[in-house]
């Protein structure tokens, strides 16, 4: 059955927030929504801005609803520019398995809700 006639439905808009480094907290880029080829450039720009301002950057991905290899490439670039920590959500597109398959866990520190509760069990390492 085809149902091409139905509308595509609302497309979630993504938001990228740059939070400058504060007392004891590194610069943070918080991404919310879907990241794809149409807006990964904005995400990259926010990461570049954070890396220019701070040697340590947190990419808060806990509110990302969709992302793909374009986002992984942006995170790799950020990891070359700064000491990158990736915060992953309990569910969502940024999973430990995807980070491992891509090799991002080798160049960035990955924090999951589980590892945040148990810092000793944190996966990955910073380099």
């Amino acid at each position, binding site marked *: 059955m085809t149902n091409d006639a139905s509308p595509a439905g609302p497309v979630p808009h993504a938001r990228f927030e740059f939070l400058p480094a504060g007392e004891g907290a590194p610069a943070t880029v918080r991404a919310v929504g879907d990241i794809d080829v149409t807006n990964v450039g904005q995400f990259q720009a926010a990461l570049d801005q954070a890396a220019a301002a701070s040697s340590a950057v947190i990419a808060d991905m806990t509110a990302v609803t969709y992302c793909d290899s374009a986002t*992984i490439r942006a995170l790799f670039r950020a990891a070359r520019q700064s000491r990158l920590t990736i915060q992953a959500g309990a569910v969502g597109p940024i*999973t430990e398995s995807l980070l491992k398959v*891509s090799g991002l866990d080798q160049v960035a520190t990955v924090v999951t809700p589980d590892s945040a509760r148990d810092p000793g069990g944190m996966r990955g390492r910073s380099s």
Partner: protein
Amino acid sequence: MSAMTPAAGYDDDVAVLIYRHPPAPLTAQVPADDPSCLAALRARLRQWLSAASIGGQEATDIMIAAGEAAANAFEHATTGRPASAEPVQITLTAHATQARVQLTVADTGRWRPPPADRTHPAPGTRGHGIIFMHALMDTVTMDSSAHGTTVTMTKDLKP
């Protein structure tokens, strides 16, 4: 349950059988004339997955695999194409049974051949898309011809 109970109650034992009826297969086609077509395809798939009661990590994995295939189709179908040419069409289909989901992503353009280093791309370079599809789905096949490319992927659903 109480709404289904006859006013006079039941004369005998009652057995309740719950059956998850798979939704009708999805077919969504968009012209690859603008990258926003990718979001339109995602919206359709998201809606369909929800109707199929497929959620959580399985739904996320399927969304990413389909998104990668569609992004590849878009990129390769539009690269080097004259502006005057008819836009390439990208067609997504999804079909669910109780035990598995099958997706196809087809385009009417031509893919670039995958890079030779597709199994071990250098970190941060292109080539992760196909690796992600393989990592997230149980089977991935790609058929290319002069008339287009079709990626077929299946994922076994947890009972």
